[in-house]
C-alpha cells in the first residue's frame, strides 16, 4: 500500500497543528460556531445527536495492521470501544469530545492517517474497488491512480469551498463495478488503449441523495497524463456555476442536468484549454513511483488445489458454507480473497468493537500480508489468503464473532447509522435491518434466494444507498411518525439503475411483512438461477405491487 514520504508526513503533521490551533481559538470564543463549522467538517468532525462524530479517512479502503491497532486504541480511549465502517470505505467514531480531537488526529498522523476532507463542501475521500489488484478480470489496478487523485485533491486551494460535497470513485474492471462509479459526482473507469496505455472513461453528475441520478459519460478516453488537468477543469466549472442558493440543488448533478451533458462538456473543454496542461501533465515517472507502492506481495508458488482445504471443507459444513459464500477466486494460484462480513444479525451493519479491530489487525498479520480493505458495503476484505490457511482463518473468525456467512446475500445489508445516532435522520434504520435479518433467517434459505442487495437509509440524504439497492428502504417522517418507503430494482454495478418506488410507505411494524411478500413473489416467478434483479427486470414492478398492496 502507499507509504508516506517526508512531504506526505509533513502535510498531515502540519494539519494536526493547524486544527489544534483552530480548535483552541474556537474554545476561547475567537471563532464563532458558524465559521468553525467548515474547519471542523474538513477535519471529519460532525455534531451528532448525542456527541461529536469523527470520520477518519481510509483512502480507497486500504488499511494496514498498524493503522488498525491505532483505530482499536482510539476506539478504546476516545469512544465507547467501537467504530463504524461507512459506505465510503471510511471509519467513524461516534463519541469523541471536541477537546480530544486534535490529540486523536495526532495519533492518526503517527500511523500515516488523517481525517482530512472526510466531510464539508470539498473533494472527499477517493473510493475504489475492494478487490483492486487481486481480481483476475481487472483491466487496470486502480490504486496508483486513486493515490494520484488523492494527492491532487488534498488541500486543493481552489476547491475547499465548493457549492456542495464532491465524491470521486475509481474502478478498473470492464464488466464489474464494485466502486459504484455511475452514482458519484465523478466516476473514473480505467482501461487501456490500443497501445496498452492507461486512460479512463469519465462519468460526471451521478449521485444519490434527494435527486438520484445515473452519471453521464463526459469523455470516453482521457489519457492518464491529462487526468488531473481534466478533473481541474470539471471542478472549476462546477465551482463557478454550481448552485449556491439551495443546498439541495447544489450538487454537480443538478448543474449537469440543467445545462445538459453536451453544454456542460463544452464548458469543461473550453476551461480545459485555458488550464496549463503541460505543467499539470503527470509524467510516467510519477505513475511508476505510485505503482511501486502497489506491487504484488510476496506470493508463494502454490498448486491450484490444496488438500488441507479439502479436508477442512469435509470436516465442517459451516466452514464449507462460509467458504462458498464469503471467499472468492484470486488471480494467484493457491490463494483466495476472503471477505469478513460485518453484518451479523443484531449488530449494527459496519460496527466493530475495539477487540474486533485488534483481532482484524492480528489476522491481517498472520494471514494476509498485514493489510485489509474496507468495502463500500461495510465489510472487510482479506485480499491474499493462502487456501491452506483458510480453515484456521475461519476458526479464528468464529472466535471473534466475525464468521457470518452472508456476503452478497440479502442479510448483507448496507445501512446508515440512522435515527439512533444521526441528527439528520428522519427514521431509525438499524432496527429495521435487524428485524429483516431475523425474519429472513427464520423463514427463508438465503443462499437459495441468491444475490440480493438490500440497502437502508434513514433519510433522503441516502447514506445507506437505498436508491441503488435491489431492494431499497428509505425512512421518512410523516407527521412525526417514522414510515418506510420501499423501492425495487436498483443497482450500483455496471448496469446501474435507480430503484422504482413500490407505492405508499409503511409503518415500522409492517416492513418485514412487506419484504416477506416481495421475496415470496420473487420465488414464485423466478426462473432457473435468475437473480432477484434479473427476475425484477423481466417481470417489472406491477406483480410486486399487486402482491404487497393486495
Amino acid at each position, binding site marked *: 500500500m502507499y507509504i508516506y514520504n517526508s512531504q506526505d508526513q509533513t502535510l498531515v503533521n502540519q494539519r494536526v497543528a493547524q486544527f489544534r490551533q483552530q480548535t483552541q481559538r474556537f474554545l476561547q470564543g475567537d471563532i464563532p460556531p458558524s465559521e468553525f463549522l467548515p474547519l471542523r467538517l474538513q477535519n471529519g468532525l460532525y455534531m451528532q445527536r448525542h456527541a461529536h462524530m469523527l470520520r477518519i479517512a481510509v483512502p480507497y479502503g486500504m488499511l494496514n495492521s498498524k493503522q488498525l491497532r491505532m483505530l482499536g486504541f482510539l476506539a478504546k480511549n476516545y469512544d465507547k470501544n467501537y467504530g463504524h465502517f461507512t459506505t465510503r470505505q471510511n471509519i467513524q467514531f461516534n463519541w469523541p469530545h471536541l477537546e480530544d480531537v486534535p490529540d486523536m488526529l495526532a495519533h492518526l498522523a503517527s500511523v500515516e492517517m488523517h481525517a482530512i476532507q472526510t466531510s464539508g*463542501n470539498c473533494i472527499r475521500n477517493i473510493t475504489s474497488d475492494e478487490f483492486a489488484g487481486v481480481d483476475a478480470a481487472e483491466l487496470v489496478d486502480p490504486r496508483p491512480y486513486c493515490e494520484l487523485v488523492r494527492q491532487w485533491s488534498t488541500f*486543493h*486551494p481552489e476547491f*475547499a469551498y465548493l*457549492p456542495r460535497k464532491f465524491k470521486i470513485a475509481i474502478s478498473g474492471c470492464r464488466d464489474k463495478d464494485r466502486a459504484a462509479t455511475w452514482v458519484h459526482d465523478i466516476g473514473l473507469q480505467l482501461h487501456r488503449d490500443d497501445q496498452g496505455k492507461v486512460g479512463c472513461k469519465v462519468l460526471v453528475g451521478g449521485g444519490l441523495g434527494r435527486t438520484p441520478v445515473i452519471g453521464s459519460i463526459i469523455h470516453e478516453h482521457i489519457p492518464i497524463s491529462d487526468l488531473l488537468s481534466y478533473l481541474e477543469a470539471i471542478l472549476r466549472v462546477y465551482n463557478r456555476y454550481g448552485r449556491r442558493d439551495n443546498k439541495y440543488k447544489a450538487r454537480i448533478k443538478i448543474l449537469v442536468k440543467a445545462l445538459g451533458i453536451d453544454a456542460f462538456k463544452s464548458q469543461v473543454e473550453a476551461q480545459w484549454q485555458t488550464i496549463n496542461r503541460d*505543467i499539470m501533465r503527470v509524467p510516467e515517472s510519477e505513475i511508476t513511483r505510485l505503482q511501486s507502492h502497489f506491487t504484488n506481495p510476496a506470493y508463494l508458488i502454490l498448486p491450484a488445489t490444496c488438500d488441507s482445504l479439502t479436508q477442512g471443507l469435509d470436516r465442517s459444513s459451516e466452514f464449507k458454507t462460509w467458504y462458498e459464500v464469503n471467499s472468492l477466486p484470486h488471480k494467484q494460484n493457491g490463494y483466495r480473497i476472503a471477505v469478513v462480513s460485518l453484518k451479523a444479525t443484531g449488530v449494527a451493519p459496519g460496527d466493530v468493537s475495539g477487540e474486533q479491530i485488534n483481532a482484524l489487525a492480528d489476522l491481517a498479520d498472520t494471514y494476509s500480508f498485514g493489510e485489509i480493505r474496507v468495502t463500500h458495503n461495510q465489510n472487510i476484505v482479506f485480499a491474499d489468503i493462502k487456501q491452506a490457511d483458510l480453515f484456521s482463518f475461519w476458526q479464528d473468525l468464529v472466535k471473534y464473532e466475525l464468521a457470518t456467512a452472508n456476503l452478497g446475500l440479502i442479510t448483507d445489508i448496507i445501512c446508515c447509522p440512522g435515527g439512533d445516532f444521526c441528527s439528520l435522520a428522519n427514521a431509525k434504520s438499524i432496527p429495521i435491518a435487524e428485524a429483516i435479518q431475523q425474519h429472513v433467517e427464520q423463514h427463508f434459505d438465503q443462499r437459495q434466494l441468491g444475490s440480493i442487495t438490500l440497502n437502508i437509509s434513514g433519510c433522503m440524504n441516502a447514506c445507506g444507498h437505498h436508491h441503488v439497492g435491489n431492494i431499497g428502504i428509505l425512512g421518512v417522517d410523516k407527521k412525526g411518525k417514522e414510515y418506510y418507503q420501499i423501492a425495487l430494482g436498483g443497482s450500483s454495478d455496471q448496469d446501474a439503475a435507480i430503484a422504482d418506488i413500490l407505492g405508499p410507505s409503511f409503518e415500522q411494524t409492517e416492513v418485514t411483512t412487506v419484504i416477506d411478500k416481495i421475496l415470496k413473489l420473487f420465488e414464485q416467478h423466478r426462473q432457473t438461477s435468475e437473480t432477484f434483479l434479473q427476475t425484477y427486470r423481466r417481470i417489472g414492478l406491477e406483480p410486486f405491487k399487486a402482491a404487497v398492496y393486495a
Partner: protein
Amino acid sequence: MHNQARGGLLKNRIFVNDNVSANLIAFADWQQNANEIENTKQQGVILPGDCEYQAYINQLLKLPIIAVFFEKFNDGRGYSLARLLREAGFKGELRAVGDVLVDQLFYLKRCGFDAFELRADQRQADAITALDSFSVSYQAAADQRQPIYQTGP
C-alpha cells in the same frame, strides 16, 4: 508583546495602510467606461466572485489592482476567479476584500491573492500563523508553478 490588533490590510506578510480599497470602482460601474483605458488604468476595480469578466479581460490585465469581493467567506467562487485572472496573465495586485477570515488565507494565497483585507474582528497575529499553515503542497497553483510530482521530494 502579543499583537492583539485586529483587521487591517496584509501585504508581503506585514500589515500596511492604504486608501486603495476606498477608491475601488465597482465592476458594474467600471464596465461602462472600460474601453476608455486612459481614464481607468490608474484605478482599481472590485469584482464580485461570480463576475463574468471575460469580455473585458484585456482592459482588466492593464489595471494595477483588482479586488475580489467575498460576500461570504465560504463562497468559493472568488478562488476560481483569482486563478483565472492569474492564468490570463494578470500581474497586478490581487486583493481579497469582504468576508476575509484568517483561516482562508493559506488557500487564498495559493490561488494568487497577494493582498488581504481582513474582516475587522480577525486577529493579525493569527493571520501570519495561518499564512504559514503548510510548508509543502501537492498541486500546482498560482504560487507554486509546478505540482509536487514535477519537482520531487
